[in-house]
Structure formats: structure tokens, C-alpha cells
């Protein structure tokens, strides 16, 4: 099988590491060779962060390049726009509709672009935009936004739901299992 590429992008602190751990656990369980590449350190402080997940029969490079991503899962709209050029032809962009102002917008040095979902679609991206924060809050806590978004993304990935749920149980702390299962389900419906 040719290597598949998934990017998880967002803002430092949004919980993208848990999302990549969930995906990693699922894919290893499915018997794939898997590489997950994260960046730690300075960029985590509210900066733009990206995690690469690659799987297939044999995976070499840990990173994904421009035009290669079969899936981009974005935790924030502006980040979806920033990374959309990494989408492969025929790739799918699943994005949270949450907006988080970066510092240049906060200070007034730049404007947050309007109408990003429409513009992403016009630029040729196959977009599924989704309010994952609302789904997480409906499940009981906005902190489960990462899991709600992965629930939505799971509809496009094509693995059976029970495999996702088993992986989810493995990667979240026991006391948050119920919340996360609920958030995942709300995302997936």
C-alpha cells in the first residue's frame, strides 16, 4: 500500500498531540508501519503547530511535504488556510471552525481573514468545516475539542468505529473516557 499522509495542524496548546496519539494507536493496531512527527519546544507557546502522521507498508520520511497530504485535520480556521497548500490532489480538509486570533491580529498589525471556509473551497480544497468546540461543549467540556474533531475526521478515514473507540480508550485517562467517547460520538454523527 502506498504511504498515506495525515497532517494535524492547529495552535499550540489545543491538544493536537492527543489527536496524533489516537491516530497512531489506531494505525499500529491495524498493522501498518507508522511514523508520527511532532515539534516540541518554543512553537508550542501559542504558535502554529503541525504534526505529521504517515502510514503504509513501509514508511521512510517522518515529514509530509507540500502537495502530499491525503488528509489535513485543522483545529483552527486560519491554520487550515496556512497549511492547505500541503493538501494532495483529491485530499480532504477537515477543519474546526474555531477562530483564535494570532498576536499580529491582537495587536492590530494584521487582520484575521474573512470568509475562510468559502475561500478554501474556492481555492480547490475539499473542505468539511465543523464546529468541534460546540460539539465538545455539548459533550461536557470544551477541552475535548480535539477528540470531537477527530470524531468528525474519522468519518472520512474509513476505519470501523469500534477500532476508533478502542484506540480512544487506550489514549485518554480513564476518568475522562466517558467525556471523550461522548465528544467523539458527537463529532462523528
Amino acid at each position: 500500500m502506498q504511504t498515506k499522509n495525515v497532517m494535524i495542524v492547529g495552535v499550540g496548546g489545543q491538544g493536537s498531540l492527543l489527536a496524533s496519539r489516537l491516530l497512531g494507536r489506531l494505525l499500529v493496531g491495524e498493522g501498518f508501519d507508522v511514523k508520527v512527527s511532532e515539534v516540541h519546544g518554543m512553537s508550542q507557546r501559542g504558535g502554529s503547530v503541525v504534526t505529521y502522521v504517515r502510514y503504509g507498508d513501509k514508511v521512510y520520511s517522518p515529514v509530509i511535504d507540500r502537495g502530499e497530504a491525503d488528509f489535513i485535520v485543522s483545529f483552527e480556521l486560519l491554520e487550515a488556510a496556512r497549511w492547505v497548500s500541503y493538501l494532495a490532489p483529491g485530499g480532504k480538509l477537515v477543519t474546526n471552525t474555531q477562530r483564535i486570533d494570532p498576536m499580529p491580529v491582537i495587536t492590530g498589525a494584521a487582520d484575521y481573514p474573512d470568509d475562510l471556509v468559502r475561500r478554501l473551497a474556492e481555492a480547490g480544497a475539499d473542505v468539511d468545516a465543523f464546529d468541534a468546540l460546540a460539539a465538545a461543549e455539548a459533550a461536557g467540556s470544551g477541552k475535548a475539542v480535539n477528540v470531537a474533531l477527530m470524531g468528525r475526521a474519522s468519518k472520512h478515514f474509513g476505519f470501523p468505529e469500534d477500532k476508533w473507540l478502542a484506540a480512544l480508550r487506550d489514549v485518554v485517562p480513564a476518568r475522562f473516557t466517558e467525556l471523550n467517547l461522548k465528544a467523539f460520538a458527537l463529532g462523528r454523527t
Partner: protein
Amino acid sequence: MKKLMLGNDAVAEGLYDAGVSFVSSYPGTPSTEVTEKLAEFRGIHSEWAPNEKVAVEAAFGASLGGVRAFSGMKHVGLNVAADPLFTMAYTGVNAGFVIAVADDPGMHSSQNEQDSRHYAVAAKVPMLEPSDSEECYEYAKLSLELSEAYDTPVLLRLCTRVSHSQSLVETTGRATPPEKPYSRDVPKYVMMPGNAKRRHPLVEERTERLRELAESSTFNSVERGADAKLGIICSGTAYQYVKEVFGSSVSVLKLGLVNPLPVRMIEGFASSVETLYVVEELDPVIETHVRALGIACHGKDVFPLCDEFSQNLVAEKLSAYLASPVVSPQPPVLGSELPTRPPVMCAGCPHRGMFHTLKQNGVTVLGDIGCYTLGAAAPLSAIDTTLCMGASVSGLHGFIHAEGNASAAKTAAVIGDSTFIHSGITGLINTAYNGGAATVIILDNSITGMTGHQQNPTTGFNIHGDPAGKIDLEALCRAVGVNRVRVVDPYRLGECDEAVREETAADELSVIISRRPCALLKTVKHSAPLTVVPAKCKQCKACMKIGCPALSMTPSGARVDATLCVGCGVCAQLCKFDAMHSSQTDA
């Protein structure tokens, strides 16, 4: 069963399984998790040292004393530890000793892009370079064996994409290493000139024996391609990018032992292919060796010296050798320039109040390495220089002498608690000793912040979070000869302002300790988030000057993001219209 494992975790597992018993490191991205993982194994000694030099010397002592030892650091950390490294190459070791050094091509979290392989060449010690987590595990184990077999410290070179990538690893369990009781050996371990003179030839001879190993060991291997048109020599991540692009269609010489480099193996490989390329990130270390053998090759004439590589870069530079031409995809792009999203100081960061004060007072600030380097970014724009660990304090001393003492009234150094202990204290001693009216501000957030909350000698806890010796910063500063030492709370802007004005004006060396724990620490209790009273907000944007990510300006006035705000109240102190209140008192 194979497990998905971070490269750094795999290094730790490998060292543990090879029987490592003493670990001393200083945190630094991307190396930190190796030592954090090792600290999870109880029954071995792990510690954070004050700096990399101390860490390496402590680990050397443990090796001498008979247990397998390890020290981990980032690339610039090895600069600090270079002094013991170069002479340990002469003394050799007793029990195995490995230093992991993590480079950061692309500078994801570093101040420079130096290539650590030069240290292996210059210090004449072997260096292994894994290319994924599996090799991290295997090489970590083998590095301790190699260290004992060749009586040398061994460098294990990591980089961001190896350290912080997860791939599948199978572990085997901890083995008991051979006993290595210390035995006195003055000619080997006392490096005074007469002894060192006798040791140096042994170092050169060892390098030649290691080169023989490089010719035949499994660290280095040839993967024969479908045809002989192109041969590529590579190592580490560059190997992964090459394989990603070419699979098994070209011949590859993969080097795992990157110092010393083989000769016959490279000559044989070169003669078996029509065209030879060396694909290596950063400096042309392998290429220089190949050219010195009189072998024609391509390398940095085609590939860049700067930044990290990728599969697209390799495909682009070597497109002539691809079976089918690269069709550059036309990915969707958005036309307009998107606003950047640089990293920022967190909401409630205790550094913010002090930086605002320094900016307001027009102080020239010599900065240092840590989260607070972010104080250089707009809108705080409060830092003038960042060089290396400790350079704020020592640099300020020279700066004031150059500018004349009057400049002391408008200059200050800022340095974090961990960085101050790492190497700021020596600079402070220098100023106390040689004179100067400098103002040094220790931003004491009671943790090593940027690398993800490691304990240090000022926190009162050790690497396991157990109570430990705690340095009294005030007493330490007084002991080195600073008479003016005061402590301020950076959440109180008035207090900061008074201290900065008085201490910069003082005609002698002074230290301000700006003390409040990092807002991200689990032990820190947050206050209720603030809310804005819309009727009172005049949209003057005074609160926006501090660059707090919890604050934004909307057409109806300032807005506080209650999910981010920790209620530090610094913005409320800037509001002249009393528009910002605690949500708790309002309720």
C-alpha cells in the same frame, strides 16, 4: 510487540536495557525527553545538573567509578560541555559513557544551526547517528558497548526529526553489564602534560581501529539499487528522505557510524556507481571526507547548507535520476498573505509585567535563553539581544563599560532562574568582582519553563519531584558581593516600576528578583478570569500593549477570553477607566 515510540524515548529505553545506571543532563529541546524518560526508571540514578559541563563531568565520574553513564543535551549544550569532552577523549572511560547530542536543523527551537558532527571529528571520539526510533534503541544500546570496547566516550547524534518522531520499536529488556570496579591508573586519568603526551598517540591509534570497525560493522551498509547510474551516501534523516524518493531504485551507502568514516567502503561504493552524491543536512562533513580521498562527488554544490531537508527537496535536486519526472502538484493556495502566528508568552505569564515595565522605562535589555526570549516580540518588544545561556549578565558588564557608567541607568540584563544557575552566576561574579553599576533581573518563575517544566536547583525539587536542596537566590547574590538585592512580584506593576527605576539609577551593582511561578504549573492556583465592563471601555487599547493572548479588541471594546485568562490582573492595572474586573467579584 512493536510499540510506537518517540526517538528520544527509544534512546532512553536502549540505554536502560544496556544497563545504564547514572544519568546527568541539562534540558534542551529537542533532547529533553531522553532524560525525562530515563528518570521514570527507578533503581537508577537520574538528575538534572546545573549545566551540561557539570552533567558530563558527573557522568564521567560515574563511569570512572564503575557504572554505565549517560548525559544528554541539545547541540549548543555540547559547547558548554566541550571542555571535559576533549580531554575525556584522552583519558578514555572505565564503564561505558555515552553523550546524546540533539541537533536542530531548521532551528525549530534553537538560536543556531550548528552541526555537532564537528565535535566528534575535533575531539576524536566515535559518533553514531540513528535515523529512526528503532535505530535510536539499537544504537543507544550498542553505544555503551562501543564505549567500553574502545575505551572512549561515545557521541550519539540526534536531531529534531529523529528525537521527536515516533516509529515502531521492539525492546528486549534490561541486561546486566559487566562489573567494572575502579582501579587507580594515574597515567590514564591524570591529564598533566607528561601523561597526556603519552595518551594522545593512543587516541590516534584508537581512531584507526574505529575506522576498521566502520569498514565492516553493521552500522554502515550498502543497499544496492536497480542500476548503477546513481549512488548516494547519506545518514540519519537524509537517508529517510532519499529512500522516500528513490526506494530501492538507486544504490545507497547508509552511514550509522558517522565518525570516524570508512575509507575502503566509500572507495568501493564510489567505484561501483557512475555518479556519486553525498546527501547530508547542514555541513559537508561526509563530503569533505569523500573529497579528501580524491573521489569526485556532488554534495553542497547541489544541496543547501541551511535548514532541514525533505523528500521534495531531494526529489527536486535529483530529479534527473527519477524514473518518471516530478509532476509538481498544483495544491490549493489562498491568494492573500495570511497573518503569521508566532509563539507568544502565555496568558498570565509572570514575565509579562516586568517586560512591560522595562519597555515603559526605555531600558536597553540584554536578554537570555528561555521562554522570556519571547519578550523580544511585538508588542512588548522589550529585549535587545539574545546570544547564549548566561550571556545577558556577562554581556551587560562589557556593554556598560563600553557605553560609560551613565548607560547603567538605562540598561539591564534579564535571565531566568534556571539559566542564572546554568551560567548567569559566573557573569554576576565577574561584575561584582570587576565593578560596574549593572542591574540584573532574575525572572524567577520557579521552573525551567521553555523545555517543558524541569526542576532545577532553585525550585527545591529534584528530577522526580521529590524535595531537594534549594538555592536561596537572594543569599547567593549577596554572597558573591551584591549589596542591593530586592524581590518584586511581577503581577504588581507599581512595584516593578519602582524597583526598575531605583535599581537602574543606583550607582552600584544590583539584582532584582522578579518572582512568581509559571502560570502553567499545576501547583499554581489561578484567579477568576477578568471581564470587561463594556460601558466603561473607551477602546484606548492601553491593555493591548502587553501582548496577552487572552485579550482582543472588538468593535464593542476589549474582550477577555475566559478560557485563557488566569486573572493575573496586569491588564486591569493598565486600564485608566476601571473597565476590567474580576468575574468573581462582579458575580
